[in-house]
Protein backbone atom coordinates (compact mmCIF):
# COMPACT_ATOMS: atom_id res chain seq x y z
CA UNK A 1 0.00 0.00 0.00
CA UNK A 2 3.06 2.23 0.29
CA UNK A 3 2.88 3.34 -3.33
CA UNK A 4 -0.40 5.17 -2.70
CA UNK A 5 1.36 7.59 -0.38
CA UNK A 6 2.25 11.13 -1.26
CA UNK A 7 5.71 12.52 -0.58
CA UNK A 8 4.35 14.31 2.48
CA UNK A 9 3.01 11.10 3.94
CA UNK A 10 6.28 9.29 3.27
CA UNK A 11 8.20 12.07 4.99
CA UNK A 12 5.83 11.90 7.96
CA UNK A 13 6.25 8.13 8.22
CA UNK A 14 10.02 8.39 8.23
CA UNK A 15 10.10 11.22 10.77
CA UNK A 16 7.52 9.51 12.93
CA UNK A 17 9.53 6.30 13.08
CA UNK A 18 12.76 8.15 13.77
CA UNK A 19 11.09 10.06 16.61
CA UNK A 20 9.56 6.96 18.21
CA UNK A 21 12.75 4.93 17.91
CA UNK A 22 14.75 7.79 19.44
CA UNK A 23 12.22 8.08 22.27
CA UNK A 24 12.32 4.37 23.04
CA UNK A 25 16.12 4.40 23.06
CA UNK A 26 16.12 7.36 25.46
CA UNK A 27 13.85 5.27 27.73
CA UNK A 28 16.45 2.56 28.23
CA UNK A 29 19.65 4.61 27.96
CA UNK A 30 19.78 5.18 31.74
CA UNK A 31 19.61 1.42 32.29
CA UNK A 32 22.37 0.75 29.79
CA UNK A 33 24.53 3.48 31.30
CA UNK A 34 24.25 1.98 34.78
CA UNK A 35 24.94 -1.50 33.39
CA UNK A 36 28.07 -0.13 31.70
CA UNK A 37 29.23 1.44 34.97
CA UNK A 38 28.70 -1.82 36.83
CA UNK A 39 31.03 -3.57 34.36
CA UNK A 40 33.73 -0.87 34.38
CA UNK A 41 36.66 -0.56 36.74
CA UNK A 42 36.37 1.97 39.52
CA UNK A 43 38.82 4.59 38.24
CA UNK A 44 37.08 4.78 34.86
CA UNK A 45 33.69 5.00 36.56
CA UNK A 46 34.68 7.77 38.95
CA UNK A 47 36.50 9.69 36.19
CA UNK A 48 33.22 9.79 34.26
CA UNK A 49 34.69 8.00 31.24
CA UNK A 50 31.86 5.49 31.04
CA UNK A 51 28.97 6.35 28.75
CA UNK A 52 27.18 3.37 27.23
CA UNK A 53 29.99 0.81 27.01
CA UNK A 54 32.12 -0.55 29.88
CA UNK A 55 35.59 0.97 30.16
CA UNK A 56 38.32 -1.47 31.36
CA UNK A 57 35.77 -4.28 31.51
CA UNK A 58 35.69 -6.18 34.81
CA UNK A 59 33.35 -8.50 36.75
CA UNK A 60 34.84 -7.22 40.06
CA UNK A 61 31.66 -5.41 41.14
CA UNK A 62 29.53 -8.47 40.58
CA UNK A 63 31.87 -10.83 42.39
CA UNK A 64 31.95 -8.33 45.25
CA UNK A 65 28.12 -8.13 45.38
CA UNK A 66 27.63 -11.88 45.07
CA UNK A 67 30.17 -12.43 47.82
CA UNK A 68 28.34 -10.10 50.19
CA UNK A 69 26.38 -12.23 52.69
CA UNK A 70 23.81 -9.46 53.35
CA UNK A 71 22.97 -9.24 49.66
CA UNK A 72 22.63 -12.99 49.20
CA UNK A 73 20.54 -13.36 52.35
CA UNK A 74 18.14 -10.62 51.18
CA UNK A 75 18.02 -12.27 47.76
CA UNK A 76 16.91 -15.59 49.30
CA UNK A 77 14.33 -13.90 51.50
CA UNK A 78 12.83 -12.33 48.39
CA UNK A 79 12.73 -15.67 46.57
CA UNK A 80 10.97 -17.18 49.57
CA UNK A 81 8.58 -14.25 49.66
CA UNK A 82 7.76 -14.50 45.96
CA UNK A 83 7.07 -18.24 46.23
CA UNK A 84 4.89 -17.98 49.35
CA UNK A 85 3.14 -14.83 48.15
CA UNK A 86 2.38 -16.35 44.76
CA UNK A 87 0.88 -19.43 46.37
CA UNK A 88 -1.28 -17.55 48.87
CA UNK A 89 -2.39 -14.79 46.48
CA UNK A 90 -3.31 -17.14 43.64
CA UNK A 91 -5.16 -19.55 45.89
CA UNK A 92 -7.25 -16.79 47.46
CA UNK A 93 -7.85 -15.01 44.14
CA UNK A 94 -9.23 -18.20 42.56
CA UNK A 95 -11.27 -19.06 45.64
CA UNK A 96 -12.85 -15.59 45.81
CA UNK A 97 -13.37 -14.98 42.11
CA UNK A 98 -15.50 -18.10 41.65
CA UNK A 99 -18.45 -17.35 43.95
CA UNK A 100 -18.29 -13.66 43.10
CA UNK A 101 -18.58 -14.45 39.39
CA UNK A 102 -21.94 -16.14 39.93
CA UNK A 103 -25.14 -14.29 39.21
CA UNK A 104 -27.36 -13.22 42.07
CA UNK A 105 -29.97 -15.81 41.14
CA UNK A 106 -27.35 -18.54 41.66
CA UNK A 107 -25.55 -17.05 44.65
CA UNK A 108 -27.90 -14.83 46.61
CA UNK A 109 -25.35 -12.86 48.65
CA UNK A 110 -22.99 -12.21 45.77
CA UNK A 111 -23.56 -8.42 45.73
CA UNK A 112 -23.12 -8.10 49.50
CA UNK A 113 -19.79 -9.93 49.38
CA UNK A 114 -18.68 -8.01 46.28
CA UNK A 115 -19.26 -4.69 48.04
CA UNK A 116 -17.50 -5.99 51.13
CA UNK A 117 -14.33 -6.40 49.03
CA UNK A 118 -14.74 -3.37 46.77
CA UNK A 119 -15.14 -1.06 49.76
CA UNK A 120 -11.48 -1.77 50.61
CA UNK A 121 -10.47 -0.20 47.29
CA UNK A 122 -12.49 2.91 48.01
CA UNK A 123 -11.46 3.44 51.62
CA UNK A 124 -8.47 2.42 53.67
CA UNK A 125 -7.37 2.91 57.24
CA UNK A 126 -4.05 4.34 56.15
CA UNK A 127 -0.46 3.56 56.99
CA UNK A 128 -0.39 4.03 60.76
CA UNK A 129 -3.48 2.00 61.77
CA UNK A 130 -2.39 -0.75 59.34
CA UNK A 131 1.02 -0.84 60.97
CA UNK A 132 -0.62 -1.09 64.39
CA UNK A 133 -2.76 -4.05 63.29
CA UNK A 134 0.28 -5.87 61.89
CA UNK A 135 2.06 -5.10 65.14
CA UNK A 136 -0.81 -6.40 67.27
CA UNK A 137 -1.12 -9.61 65.26
CA UNK A 138 2.57 -10.31 66.09
CA UNK A 139 3.66 -10.50 62.47
CA UNK A 140 6.53 -8.02 62.89
CA UNK A 141 9.91 -9.56 61.92
CA UNK A 142 8.21 -12.59 60.37
CA UNK A 143 8.13 -13.29 56.64
CA UNK A 144 4.33 -13.56 56.93
CA UNK A 145 4.16 -9.80 57.52
CA UNK A 146 5.07 -9.46 53.83
CA UNK A 147 2.37 -11.90 52.72
CA UNK A 148 -0.67 -11.94 54.99
CA UNK A 149 -1.63 -8.21 55.07
CA UNK A 150 -1.79 -8.16 51.25
CA UNK A 151 -3.06 -11.72 50.85
CA UNK A 152 -6.30 -10.66 49.15
CA UNK A 153 -5.51 -8.75 45.93
CA UNK A 154 -8.95 -7.30 45.22
CA UNK A 155 -8.04 -5.96 41.76
CA UNK A 156 -6.87 -9.39 40.62
CA UNK A 157 -10.05 -10.94 42.00
CA UNK A 158 -12.09 -8.53 39.87
CA UNK A 159 -9.92 -9.32 36.84
CA UNK A 160 -10.42 -13.05 37.27
CA UNK A 161 -14.13 -12.90 38.07
CA UNK A 162 -14.71 -10.93 34.89
CA UNK A 163 -12.80 -13.61 32.99
CA UNK A 164 -14.82 -16.39 34.68
CA UNK A 165 -18.01 -14.67 33.55
CA UNK A 166 -16.86 -14.79 29.95
CA UNK A 167 -16.54 -18.59 29.99
CA UNK A 168 -19.27 -20.49 28.09
CA UNK A 169 -22.05 -21.33 30.53
CA UNK A 170 -22.99 -24.58 28.76
CA UNK A 171 -19.81 -26.33 29.98
CA UNK A 172 -20.58 -25.57 33.58
CA UNK A 173 -24.22 -26.62 33.21
CA UNK A 174 -23.14 -29.91 31.64
CA UNK A 175 -20.84 -30.56 34.60
CA UNK A 176 -23.63 -29.89 37.08
CA UNK A 177 -25.96 -32.21 35.19
CA UNK A 178 -23.29 -34.89 35.61
CA UNK A 179 -23.48 -34.30 39.34
CA UNK A 180 -20.29 -32.25 39.83
CA UNK A 181 -19.86 -30.17 42.98
CA UNK A 182 -19.02 -26.43 42.94
CA UNK A 183 -15.52 -27.19 44.22
CA UNK A 184 -14.93 -29.66 41.38
CA UNK A 185 -16.29 -27.29 38.75
CA UNK A 186 -13.96 -24.56 39.99
CA UNK A 187 -10.75 -26.62 40.03
CA UNK A 188 -11.45 -29.04 37.18
CA UNK A 189 -13.24 -26.72 34.78
CA UNK A 190 -12.81 -23.02 35.50
CA UNK A 191 -9.13 -23.10 36.48
CA UNK A 192 -7.92 -25.11 33.43
CA UNK A 193 -10.03 -22.91 31.13
CA UNK A 194 -8.55 -19.73 32.60
CA UNK A 195 -4.83 -20.37 32.13
CA UNK A 196 -4.21 -17.16 30.13
CA UNK A 197 -5.89 -15.05 32.81
CA UNK A 198 -4.19 -16.97 35.63
CA UNK A 199 -0.78 -16.69 33.95
CA UNK A 200 -1.26 -12.94 33.63
CA UNK A 201 -2.25 -12.57 37.27
CA UNK A 202 0.61 -14.84 38.38
CA UNK A 203 3.14 -12.72 36.52
CA UNK A 204 1.71 -9.52 38.00
CA UNK A 205 1.91 -11.13 41.44
CA UNK A 206 5.52 -12.20 40.97
CA UNK A 207 6.51 -8.71 39.82
CA UNK A 208 4.57 -7.16 42.70
CA UNK A 209 6.25 -9.30 45.35
CA UNK A 210 9.69 -8.96 43.79
CA UNK A 211 9.40 -5.17 43.66
CA UNK A 212 7.80 -4.61 47.07
CA UNK A 213 10.12 -2.82 49.47
CA UNK A 214 8.14 -0.60 51.85
CA UNK A 215 6.49 -3.37 53.87
CA UNK A 216 9.90 -4.97 54.42
CA UNK A 217 11.28 -1.64 55.59
CA UNK A 218 8.57 -0.99 58.17
CA UNK A 219 7.57 -4.50 59.29
CA UNK A 220 11.10 -5.84 59.73
CA UNK A 221 12.93 -4.39 62.70
CA UNK A 222 16.08 -6.36 61.99
CA UNK A 223 17.87 -5.57 58.71
CA UNK A 224 18.80 -9.25 58.38
CA UNK A 225 15.10 -9.93 57.72
CA UNK A 226 14.91 -7.45 54.83
CA UNK A 227 13.86 -8.72 51.40
CA UNK A 228 16.12 -7.64 48.54
CA UNK A 229 14.37 -4.42 47.51
CA UNK A 230 14.22 -3.19 51.12
CA UNK A 231 17.89 -4.03 51.52
CA UNK A 232 18.71 -2.21 48.28
CA UNK A 233 16.71 0.78 49.52
CA UNK A 234 19.04 1.14 52.47
CA UNK A 235 22.19 0.53 50.43
CA UNK A 236 21.52 2.43 47.20
CA UNK A 237 19.11 5.16 48.22
CA UNK A 238 19.94 5.97 51.82
CA UNK A 239 23.44 7.22 51.08
CA UNK A 240 24.31 8.08 54.66
CA UNK A 241 24.24 4.41 55.59
CA UNK A 242 26.01 3.31 52.44
CA UNK A 243 28.77 5.88 52.93
CA UNK A 244 30.24 4.09 55.91
CA UNK A 245 30.40 0.73 54.26
CA UNK A 246 31.73 2.35 51.09
CA UNK A 247 34.72 3.77 52.91
CA UNK A 248 36.02 0.46 54.16
CA UNK A 249 35.00 -1.04 50.88
CA UNK A 250 37.23 1.29 48.87
CA UNK A 251 40.28 0.43 50.91
CA UNK A 252 39.65 -3.29 50.63
CA UNK A 253 38.95 -3.91 46.99
CA UNK A 254 39.01 -2.57 43.48
CA UNK A 255 35.32 -1.89 43.66
CA UNK A 256 34.04 1.62 44.30
CA UNK A 257 30.78 2.69 45.89
CA UNK A 258 29.48 3.72 42.49
CA UNK A 259 30.29 0.53 40.61
CA UNK A 260 29.03 -1.70 43.42
CA UNK A 261 25.78 0.27 43.61
CA UNK A 262 25.39 -0.05 39.85
CA UNK A 263 25.93 -3.81 40.06
CA UNK A 264 23.35 -4.11 42.83
CA UNK A 265 20.83 -2.04 40.87
CA UNK A 266 21.29 -4.33 37.92
CA UNK A 267 21.07 -7.49 40.03
CA UNK A 268 17.85 -6.16 41.58
CA UNK A 269 16.35 -5.68 38.12
CA UNK A 270 17.70 -8.87 36.55
CA UNK A 271 14.87 -11.31 37.43
CA UNK A 272 12.33 -8.85 36.03
CA UNK A 273 14.37 -8.55 32.84
CA UNK A 274 14.50 -12.34 32.61
CA UNK A 275 10.73 -12.81 32.83
CA UNK A 276 10.05 -9.70 30.74
CA UNK A 277 9.44 -11.63 27.47
CA UNK A 278 6.68 -13.61 29.22
CA UNK A 279 5.34 -10.50 30.86
CA UNK A 280 5.04 -8.75 27.54
CA UNK A 281 3.20 -11.64 26.00
CA UNK A 282 0.62 -11.71 28.75
CA UNK A 283 0.14 -8.23 30.12
CA UNK A 284 -1.53 -6.69 27.09
CA UNK A 285 -3.94 -9.60 27.22
CA UNK A 286 -4.37 -9.02 30.95
CA UNK A 287 -5.27 -5.38 30.54
CA UNK A 288 -7.81 -6.22 27.87
CA UNK A 289 -9.10 -9.11 30.02
CA UNK A 290 -10.07 -6.76 32.80
CA UNK A 291 -12.44 -4.97 30.48
CA UNK A 292 -14.26 -8.09 29.32
CA UNK A 293 -17.70 -7.42 30.70
CA UNK A 294 -21.24 -8.18 29.77
Amino acid sequence: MDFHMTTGQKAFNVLNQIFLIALSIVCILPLIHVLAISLSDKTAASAGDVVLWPVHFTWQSYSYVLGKPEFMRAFWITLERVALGLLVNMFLTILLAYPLSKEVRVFKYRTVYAWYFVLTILFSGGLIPTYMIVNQTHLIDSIWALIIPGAVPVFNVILLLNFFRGLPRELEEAAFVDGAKQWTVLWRLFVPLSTPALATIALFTIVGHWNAWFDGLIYMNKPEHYPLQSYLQTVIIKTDLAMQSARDLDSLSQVSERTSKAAQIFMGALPILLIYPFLQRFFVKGIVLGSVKE
Partner: protein
Amino acid sequence: MNKTRVSQLPFHLMLLPGVVLVLVFSYGPMFGIIMSFQQYIPAKGFAGSEWIGLDNFRYVLDMPDTFTVLWNTMYISMMKIAAGLVFPILIALLLNEVRKNVVKRTIQTLIYLPHFLSWIILGGILIDVLSPSSGIVNHFLAIFGIKPIFFLGSNHWFPFTIVLSDLWKEFGFATIVYLAALTSINPVLYEAAIVDGANRWKQTLHVTLPGMAPIIVLLLTLSLGNVLNAGFDQIFNLYSPQVYESGDIIDTMVYRLGLVDAQFGPAAAVGLFKSLVSFVFISVSYLLAYRFANYRIF
Protein backbone atom coordinates in the same frame (compact mmCIF):
# COMPACT_ATOMS: atom_id res chain seq x y z
CA MET B 1 -36.33 -24.03 38.02
CA ASN B 2 -33.32 -25.34 39.91
CA LYS B 3 -32.96 -22.04 41.76
CA THR B 4 -33.62 -23.59 45.14
CA ARG B 5 -31.41 -26.59 44.47
CA VAL B 6 -28.12 -24.64 44.25
CA SER B 7 -26.62 -24.94 47.71
CA GLN B 8 -25.21 -21.65 48.98
CA LEU B 9 -22.89 -23.23 51.54
CA PRO B 10 -19.93 -23.99 49.20
CA PHE B 11 -19.91 -20.33 48.12
CA HIS B 12 -19.79 -19.08 51.71
CA LEU B 13 -17.01 -21.54 52.55
CA MET B 14 -14.93 -20.46 49.57
CA LEU B 15 -15.26 -16.82 50.60
CA LEU B 16 -14.55 -17.42 54.28
CA PRO B 17 -10.71 -17.22 54.31
CA GLY B 18 -10.70 -14.04 52.20
CA VAL B 19 -13.44 -12.47 54.27
CA VAL B 20 -11.53 -13.09 57.50
CA LEU B 21 -8.22 -11.76 56.13
CA VAL B 22 -9.86 -8.63 54.77
CA LEU B 23 -11.74 -8.18 58.05
CA VAL B 24 -8.50 -8.15 60.02
CA PHE B 25 -6.13 -6.36 57.65
CA SER B 26 -8.46 -3.96 55.81
CA TYR B 27 -11.41 -3.40 58.12
CA GLY B 28 -9.16 -3.65 61.19
CA PRO B 29 -7.18 -0.54 60.17
CA MET B 30 -10.44 1.25 59.31
CA PHE B 31 -11.58 0.63 62.87
CA GLY B 32 -8.08 1.58 64.02
CA ILE B 33 -8.65 5.09 62.66
CA ILE B 34 -10.20 5.86 66.03
CA MET B 35 -6.59 6.33 67.15
CA SER B 36 -6.60 9.70 65.41
CA PHE B 37 -8.93 10.87 68.20
CA GLN B 38 -6.68 9.37 70.88
CA GLN B 39 -3.44 9.99 72.65
CA TYR B 40 -2.43 6.64 71.22
CA ILE B 41 0.12 4.55 73.05
CA PRO B 42 0.89 1.16 71.42
CA ALA B 43 1.22 -0.65 74.75
CA LYS B 44 -2.29 0.46 75.77
CA GLY B 45 -3.86 -0.39 72.41
CA PHE B 46 -6.99 1.08 70.85
CA ALA B 47 -9.13 0.30 73.88
CA GLY B 48 -6.84 1.66 76.59
CA SER B 49 -5.53 4.86 74.99
CA GLU B 50 -6.88 8.19 76.18
CA TRP B 51 -9.52 10.02 74.11
CA ILE B 52 -8.53 13.57 73.24
CA GLY B 53 -11.18 14.64 70.72
CA LEU B 54 -9.86 16.72 67.87
CA ASP B 55 -6.54 17.66 69.47
CA ASN B 56 -4.52 15.66 66.95
CA PHE B 57 -6.15 17.51 64.07
CA ARG B 58 -5.52 20.89 65.74
CA TYR B 59 -1.91 19.90 66.33
CA VAL B 60 -1.40 19.05 62.65
CA LEU B 61 -3.14 22.23 61.47
CA ASP B 62 -0.83 24.28 63.70
CA MET B 63 2.28 22.72 62.19
CA PRO B 64 3.94 25.26 59.89
CA ASP B 65 4.41 22.90 56.93
CA THR B 66 0.98 21.33 56.68
CA PHE B 67 -0.35 23.58 53.93
CA THR B 68 2.89 23.41 51.96
CA VAL B 69 2.60 19.63 52.06
CA LEU B 70 -1.02 19.73 50.90
CA TRP B 71 -0.11 22.12 48.10
CA ASN B 72 2.89 20.01 47.00
CA THR B 73 0.73 16.90 46.93
CA MET B 74 -1.94 18.41 44.70
CA TYR B 75 0.55 20.30 42.51
CA ILE B 76 2.61 17.17 41.77
CA SER B 77 -0.38 14.85 41.36
CA MET B 78 -2.23 17.24 39.01
CA MET B 79 0.86 17.65 36.84
CA LYS B 80 1.25 13.88 36.77
CA ILE B 81 -2.41 13.38 35.82
CA ALA B 82 -2.17 15.94 32.99
CA ALA B 83 1.15 14.69 31.62
CA GLY B 84 0.11 11.07 32.09
CA LEU B 85 -2.96 11.66 29.99
CA VAL B 86 -1.69 13.80 27.10
CA PHE B 87 1.66 12.17 26.38
CA PRO B 88 0.48 8.51 26.16
CA ILE B 89 -2.41 9.53 23.85
CA LEU B 90 0.05 11.32 21.59
CA ILE B 91 2.45 8.37 21.51
CA ALA B 92 -0.40 5.90 20.93
CA LEU B 93 -1.54 7.97 17.94
CA LEU B 94 1.99 8.06 16.52
CA LEU B 95 2.55 4.33 17.19
CA ASN B 96 -0.68 3.60 15.39
CA GLU B 97 0.77 5.21 12.27
CA VAL B 98 3.75 2.83 12.26
CA ARG B 99 2.90 0.21 9.67
CA LYS B 100 5.92 -2.09 10.08
CA ASN B 101 5.04 -4.54 12.84
CA VAL B 102 8.64 -5.35 13.79
CA VAL B 103 9.42 -1.68 14.37
CA LYS B 104 6.22 -1.17 16.31
CA ARG B 105 6.79 -4.16 18.56
CA THR B 106 10.40 -3.22 19.24
CA ILE B 107 9.37 0.29 20.28
CA GLN B 108 6.67 -1.14 22.55
CA THR B 109 9.10 -3.58 24.17
CA LEU B 110 11.45 -0.74 25.06
CA ILE B 111 8.91 1.79 26.32
CA TYR B 112 6.95 -0.69 28.47
CA LEU B 113 10.03 -1.88 30.36
CA PRO B 114 10.44 0.81 33.07
CA HIS B 115 6.89 0.14 34.27
CA PHE B 116 7.97 -3.24 35.63
CA LEU B 117 10.97 -2.00 37.61
CA SER B 118 10.60 -0.79 41.19
CA TRP B 119 11.25 2.78 42.30
CA ILE B 120 14.24 1.40 44.21
CA ILE B 121 15.87 0.36 40.93
CA LEU B 122 14.74 3.42 38.99
CA GLY B 123 15.52 5.69 41.94
CA GLY B 124 19.03 4.26 42.16
CA ILE B 125 19.51 4.83 38.45
CA LEU B 126 18.16 8.40 38.63
CA ILE B 127 20.35 9.30 41.59
CA ASP B 128 23.42 8.15 39.66
CA VAL B 129 22.45 9.68 36.33
CA LEU B 130 21.25 13.03 37.72
CA SER B 131 24.11 13.61 40.18
CA PRO B 132 25.42 17.20 39.85
CA SER B 133 29.04 16.12 40.15
CA SER B 134 29.33 12.72 38.45
CA GLY B 135 26.00 12.22 36.67
CA ILE B 136 25.99 11.72 32.93
CA VAL B 137 23.10 14.14 32.38
CA ASN B 138 25.09 17.04 33.80
CA HIS B 139 28.20 15.95 31.90
CA PHE B 140 26.08 16.09 28.77
CA LEU B 141 24.67 19.52 29.63
CA ALA B 142 28.21 20.77 30.26
CA ILE B 143 28.98 20.25 26.57
CA PHE B 144 26.52 23.06 25.87
CA GLY B 145 28.04 25.18 28.61
CA ILE B 146 25.18 24.61 31.03
CA LYS B 147 26.22 24.66 34.68
CA PRO B 148 25.47 21.52 36.74
CA ILE B 149 21.83 21.32 37.79
CA PHE B 150 20.97 19.59 41.08
CA PHE B 151 17.75 18.00 39.77
CA LEU B 152 16.98 16.15 43.00
CA GLY B 153 18.33 18.75 45.41
CA SER B 154 16.86 22.03 44.20
CA ASN B 155 13.35 23.12 45.08
CA HIS B 156 13.03 24.69 41.67
CA TRP B 157 13.76 21.47 39.77
CA PHE B 158 12.50 18.75 42.09
CA PRO B 159 8.76 18.70 41.18
CA PHE B 160 9.54 18.65 37.45
CA THR B 161 12.10 15.89 37.91
CA ILE B 162 9.45 13.90 39.74
CA VAL B 163 6.78 14.41 37.07
CA LEU B 164 9.18 13.71 34.21
CA SER B 165 10.68 10.58 35.77
CA ASP B 166 7.20 9.28 36.57
CA LEU B 167 6.31 9.85 32.92
CA TRP B 168 9.42 7.88 31.95
CA LYS B 169 8.24 4.94 34.04
CA GLU B 170 4.58 4.92 33.10
CA PHE B 171 3.89 6.54 29.71
CA GLY B 172 4.70 3.45 27.65
CA PHE B 173 2.47 1.18 29.67
CA ALA B 174 -0.32 3.77 29.59
CA THR B 175 -0.36 3.67 25.77
CA ILE B 176 -1.65 0.05 25.88
CA VAL B 177 -5.19 1.10 26.77
CA TYR B 178 -5.28 3.73 24.03
CA LEU B 179 -3.83 1.35 21.43
CA ALA B 180 -6.57 -1.13 22.32
CA ALA B 181 -9.16 1.63 21.88
CA LEU B 182 -7.64 2.53 18.50
CA THR B 183 -7.97 -0.99 17.14
CA SER B 184 -11.63 -1.06 18.10
CA ILE B 185 -12.51 1.87 15.82
CA ASN B 186 -14.56 0.67 12.87
CA PRO B 187 -12.37 0.69 9.67
CA VAL B 188 -15.46 1.66 7.65
CA LEU B 189 -15.24 5.12 9.22
CA TYR B 190 -11.73 5.56 7.79
CA GLU B 191 -12.81 4.35 4.37
CA ALA B 192 -15.70 6.82 4.40
CA ALA B 193 -13.32 9.60 5.42
CA ILE B 194 -10.89 8.71 2.61
CA VAL B 195 -13.77 8.75 0.10
CA ASP B 196 -14.62 12.23 1.39
CA GLY B 197 -11.03 13.24 0.64
CA ALA B 198 -9.69 13.38 4.22
CA ASN B 199 -5.91 13.07 4.58
CA ARG B 200 -4.24 11.31 7.53
CA TRP B 201 -4.30 14.40 9.70
CA LYS B 202 -8.00 15.02 8.99
CA GLN B 203 -8.73 11.33 9.67
CA THR B 204 -6.97 11.58 13.02
CA LEU B 205 -8.90 14.69 13.91
CA HIS B 206 -12.35 13.55 12.80
CA VAL B 207 -12.30 9.77 13.18
CA THR B 208 -9.55 8.65 15.54
CA LEU B 209 -9.88 11.25 18.30
CA PRO B 210 -13.70 11.08 18.52
CA GLY B 211 -13.36 7.29 18.58
CA MET B 212 -10.99 7.52 21.54
CA ALA B 213 -13.03 10.15 23.40
CA PRO B 214 -14.95 7.70 25.63
CA ILE B 215 -11.82 5.96 26.92
CA ILE B 216 -10.05 9.31 27.42
CA VAL B 217 -12.97 10.67 29.44
CA LEU B 218 -13.15 7.42 31.42
CA LEU B 219 -9.46 7.42 32.34
CA LEU B 220 -9.53 11.12 33.20
CA THR B 221 -12.51 10.56 35.47
CA LEU B 222 -10.92 7.58 37.19
CA SER B 223 -7.67 9.52 37.71
CA LEU B 224 -9.66 11.96 39.91
CA GLY B 225 -9.24 9.43 42.70
CA ASN B 226 -5.50 10.12 42.65
CA VAL B 227 -5.48 13.86 43.45
CA LEU B 228 -3.95 13.15 46.85
CA ASN B 229 -1.64 10.42 45.55
CA ALA B 230 1.51 12.17 44.41
CA GLY B 231 3.44 8.88 44.40
CA PHE B 232 4.90 7.82 47.75
CA ASP B 233 7.19 5.09 46.37
CA GLN B 234 8.84 7.50 43.99
CA ILE B 235 9.18 10.56 46.19
CA PHE B 236 10.29 8.65 49.27
CA ASN B 237 13.24 7.28 47.31
CA LEU B 238 14.22 10.52 45.61
CA TYR B 239 13.66 13.29 48.14
CA SER B 240 15.86 14.65 50.89
CA PRO B 241 15.37 17.27 53.63
CA GLN B 242 16.62 20.05 51.34
CA VAL B 243 13.62 19.57 49.00
CA TYR B 244 10.91 19.12 51.65
CA GLU B 245 9.73 22.61 50.72
CA SER B 246 8.76 21.52 47.20
CA GLY B 247 8.62 17.74 47.46
CA ASP B 248 7.22 16.71 50.83
CA ILE B 249 3.77 15.16 50.28
CA ILE B 250 1.02 13.87 52.55
CA ASP B 251 2.21 10.26 52.46
CA THR B 252 5.85 11.04 53.23
CA MET B 253 4.71 13.37 56.02
CA VAL B 254 2.52 10.62 57.54
CA TYR B 255 5.47 8.23 57.39
CA ARG B 256 7.88 10.59 59.14
CA LEU B 257 5.34 11.79 61.68
CA GLY B 258 4.14 8.28 62.55
CA LEU B 259 6.92 5.80 62.01
CA VAL B 260 9.97 8.01 62.55
CA ASP B 261 8.78 10.49 65.21
CA ALA B 262 6.30 8.01 66.77
CA GLN B 263 3.53 10.65 66.86
CA PHE B 264 0.94 8.00 66.09
CA GLY B 265 -2.20 10.04 66.81
CA PRO B 266 -1.38 13.06 64.62
CA ALA B 267 -0.06 10.81 61.83
CA ALA B 268 -3.27 8.76 61.85
CA ALA B 269 -5.25 12.03 61.77
CA VAL B 270 -3.48 13.13 58.57
CA GLY B 271 -4.07 9.64 57.17
CA LEU B 272 -7.78 9.87 58.00
CA PHE B 273 -8.02 13.23 56.23
CA LYS B 274 -6.39 11.75 53.13
CA SER B 275 -8.56 8.61 53.19
CA LEU B 276 -11.75 10.66 53.52
CA VAL B 277 -10.91 13.07 50.69
CA SER B 278 -9.76 10.19 48.48
CA PHE B 279 -12.93 8.25 49.29
CA VAL B 280 -15.08 11.17 48.12
CA PHE B 281 -13.04 11.64 44.94
CA ILE B 282 -12.91 7.93 44.07
CA SER B 283 -16.63 7.43 44.75
CA VAL B 284 -17.59 10.48 42.68
CA SER B 285 -15.29 9.40 39.85
CA TYR B 286 -16.69 5.85 39.80
CA LEU B 287 -20.20 7.26 39.89
CA LEU B 288 -19.47 9.63 37.00
CA ALA B 289 -17.78 6.85 35.04
CA TYR B 290 -20.79 4.62 35.63
CA ARG B 291 -23.26 7.34 34.61
CA PHE B 292 -21.52 8.58 31.49
CA ALA B 293 -19.41 5.69 30.27
CA ASN B 294 -21.46 2.84 31.73
CA TYR B 295 -18.27 1.68 33.42
CA ARG B 296 -18.59 -1.00 36.07
CA ILE B 297 -15.75 -2.51 38.04
CA PHE B 298 -17.53 -5.79 38.67
